[in-house]
């Protein structure tokens, strides 16, 4: 493996967004950074800045108000990127499934690569999930841009989509 391909896997900087879950998984994500689990072994740091992130950890069942913010954050993360849905409610809605203000999971809004089940997801499960996400990340390059369904709906023709991409680049 060349140094470039290796470095893509070895330095995942994470961005974390809670889309209205119960906080349990968020705290476990924080716990993953602390001495017992210490994911900085893999080069992971919590940058908290979408523009410098590679791995996007999303928790929560996506409430209607968080939806726009989630899409906005997703578009701001530069490729190559992976999205990890952490926790049952981020995967399929969990116990909040079919409540009136939720979207039943992250993959209804943005493309998701890895699902970490568990309520709340254990730190071990999160580490497993991130390791799996890194395998997927090693195959991605900056050319393959995935757009959320929402953007595809709003800009159905290819030309419009190109406009969105240009907008994204300008941003």
């Amino acid at each position, binding site marked *: 493996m060349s140094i470039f391909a290796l470095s893509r896997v070895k330095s995942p900087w994470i961005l974390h967004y809670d889309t209205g879950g119960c906080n349990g998984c968020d705290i476990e994500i924080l716990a993953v950074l602390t*001495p017992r689990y210490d994911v900085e072994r893999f080069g992971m740091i919590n940058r908290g800045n979408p523009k410098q992130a590679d791995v996007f950890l999303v928790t929560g069942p996506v409430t209607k108000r968080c939806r726009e913010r989630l899409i906005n954050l997703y578009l701001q993360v530069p490729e190559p990127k992976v999205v990890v849905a952490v926790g049952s409610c981020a995967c399929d809605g969990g116990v909040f499934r079919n409540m009136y203000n939720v979207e039943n999971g992250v993959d209804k809004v943005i493309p998701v690569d890895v699902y970490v089940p568990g309520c709340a997801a254990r730190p071990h499960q999160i580490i497993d999930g991130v390791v*799996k996400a890194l395998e997927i990340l090693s195959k991605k390059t900056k050319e393959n841009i995935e757009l959320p369904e929402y953007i595809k709906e709003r800009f159905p023709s290819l030309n419009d989509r190109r406009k969105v991409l240009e907008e994204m680049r300008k941003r």
Partner: protein
Amino acid sequence: MLKMFLTSVLNLFRKPATHLYPFEPYEPFEDYRGRIVWNEEKCTFCMRCEMVCPPGAIKIMIMEDDTKRWLWNPAQCIYCGECVRNCPFGALTQENQYSPPLDKSNKRDWSEIEREAERLKLLWRERLRKKSQAKKSS
């Protein structure tokens, strides 16, 4: 300030508290609430687990030829163990192993399964009604 200074300098010579997880195996506690395991032989498809499950992560499909399937969604389960406690025949048990992460290839589309199970259940009820009507008329 001084205490933390000393602690941090001394920590250089102490063993780190880190558990090197993916390289060192981890064994969860004995009664950790992990995956749900279904024993087909003991199950009578009484649908009690489907009824008590808070998120609706268990679905029982009654196919058109009256064979039954028990489906469980690890990505929606909240691992509360309510189905295990309520199973009258002991067909469900809870392992102490947690679920592995899923990706696009092995994650079920649960909303489709829900819809399908609902449709099959309606058909099943229709069949039951017809059967009982046939019994009555005979």
